């Protein structure tokens, strides 16, 4: 009996040894592949992971001339200051409202456009529409905002000229607080709605045409076909994108908002990203602004994990 357990143990050791040498063999065989990955890996370590380590300065009173090693620890002081500041709730609210606009107004639009495009039977028409509606995605935010600016400006802007000729009052869209949010979301729709259809259209191509045939036989009209066949077929893609969108909760586009921001609309336009930029790089409060950014990024991460968990709970695939 004793000998048999010994041999079993020995056998295990032997297997482990073989496995390990097999792993080593595989690593050695692929040494050139590791060499290929190395530059990319170094990039991610330096420019993605080192900044994550740099988040520790949000618990310090970071002084550039002292460096991370020499600066004083202050615990949660910067976070406390953030939560107690009068501006915190203003920024929080602004960020949340823009996020809600993204989620409830922008998100469904590409889905609707793809459903509509899917019903087009003349491929030249479909391709023509696609070609045109993808264009704005390739424009920078500077171009999008600049075009809006020259069209909306009070002196000589086309929109105010039209309003005037129709007998309405001119509107100062660019400085008016009430117009910031509509302008923001319309620009997002203009730039991204068309491009957003790509992924849904790709998912729709996987739908079996026989399903539509069968539905027609059953007397389903075009709306019912969309609702009962196309939409369920792309449900998983919709959920994945929804999770990613929720994870992006606070990624509302620094560039975009920063370009629209001015002193008159600041009350509605200041969001976490723009606040970090102003407090950090313009006023030099490195630690405080890092704490603000950390808070924002942390919430984003928690939300994406939560959304993914929720999707799994409802037996959907999720993103990981």
């Amino acid at each position, binding site marked *: 009996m004793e000998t048999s357990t010994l041999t079993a143990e020995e056998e295990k050791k032997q297997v482990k040894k073989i496995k390990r040498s097999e*792993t080593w063999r595989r*690593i050695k065989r692929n040494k*050139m592949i*590791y060499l*290929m*990955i190395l*530059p*990319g890996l170094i*990039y*991610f370590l*330096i*420019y*993605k992971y080192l*900044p994550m*380590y740099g988040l520790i*300065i949000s618990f310090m009173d970071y002084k550039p001339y002292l460096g991370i090693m020499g600066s004083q620890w202050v615990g949660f002081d910067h976070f406390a200051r953030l939560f107690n500041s009068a501006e915190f709730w203003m920024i929080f609210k602004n960020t949340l409202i823009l996020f809600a606009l993204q989620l409830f107004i922008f998100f469904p639009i590409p889905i609707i*456009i793809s459903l509509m*495009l899917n019903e*087009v039977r003349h491929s030249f*028409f479909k*391709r*023509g*529409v696609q070609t*045109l*509606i*993808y*264009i*704005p995605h390739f*424009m*920078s*935010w*500077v171009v999008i905002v*600049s*075009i809006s600016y*020259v*069209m909306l400006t009070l002196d000589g802007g*086309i929109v105010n000229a*039209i309003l005037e000729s129709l007998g309405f009052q001119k509107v100062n869209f660019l400085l008016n607080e009430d117009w910031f949010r509509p302008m923001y979301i319309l620009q997002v729709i203009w730039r991204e709605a*068309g491009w957003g259809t*790509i*992924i849904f259209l*790709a998912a729709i191509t996987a739908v079996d045409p026989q399903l539509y045939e069968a539905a*027609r036989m059953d007397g389903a*009209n075009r709306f019912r076909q969309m609702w009962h066949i196309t939409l369920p077929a792309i449900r998983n*893609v919709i959920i*994945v994108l929804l999770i990613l969108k929720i994870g992006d909760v606070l990624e509302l586009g*620094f*560039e975009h908002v*920063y*370009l629209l921001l001015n002193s008159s609309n600041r009350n509605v336009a200041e969001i976490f*990203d723009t606040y*970090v930029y102003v407090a*950090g790089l313009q006023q030099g409060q*490195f630690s405080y602004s*890092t704490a603000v*950014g*950390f808070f924002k*990024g942390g919430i*984003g*991460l928690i939300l994406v994990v939560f959304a993914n968990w929720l999707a799994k709970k409802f037996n959907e695939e999720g993103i990981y």
Partner: protein
Amino acid sequence: MAQRRISTGSRVFDFFNYFLLALLAIITVLPFIHVVGSSFATSAEIARTKFLLFPTEFSLQAYKYIFSTDTIFRALGVSIIVTVGGTLWSMLFSVLTAYGLSRRDLVGRRVINFLIVFTLLFNGGMIPTFLVVQQTGLLDSLWALIIPVTINAFNMIILRSFFMNLPQGLEESAKIDGANDFSILFRIVIPISLPAIATISLFYAVTYWNTYMHAILYLADADKWPVQVLLRQIVVLASGMNYDAEAYSDVPPPEVTVKMATIVVATVPVLLVYPFLQKYFAKGALLGSVKG
């Protein structure tokens, strides 16, 4: 009877569907046409007709004006250098990493993949990244627009899934013939992946051309500003043309046409590559494979 009713409903549906989509497409491009049209208009016509799409009198006045100093040439030069150099740089790193990670027998592949995907969900944020850029000595150098964004994780993942879907047999037979991994990548894999490589290159190129945020974060020296920053200065900040004011000593032409012309100059290169982009991403499957 029933057949007939369905087909009428279907026709009404088609009518509205086509009509709305056409309208959407027109509304999407109308602002661009307005801007291009206005940039070629004379100042008199701009003042007379407000809603202008096609000028009746063709004028290059605005373009002559913006090209009369070297400000715009310098900015365009910076943008071209960053776009061409950055795209080559990014593609080199992205292709190498994507190909390496597409090899299924690689030990540690899952961990590395996770490390890369995680950067999409969480990052250090603007200030810590700025400090790293500063520490690595990139501030005020054009490299600051390139090195910190060497690999876009999304683009790398698209490339990786493209490589993973290539037939395995090709590599195997090349290996039997004694080719090493680098020559397999450059002699076999890249030549048959040109559509994917072209698409991702164009994505990178557009991103580099459109770069704005990194320029205002990392470059204090106005001589190194790319064209997007200049555009921003001209359209929004310089209502009184306070940038390089002396340089434009002539009688100032209507600001509107100049703004329009600058927008066009900053946009045209993207529109030039657009047909090529369109050709490749029409095969939408490429982007559909992002997941997984």
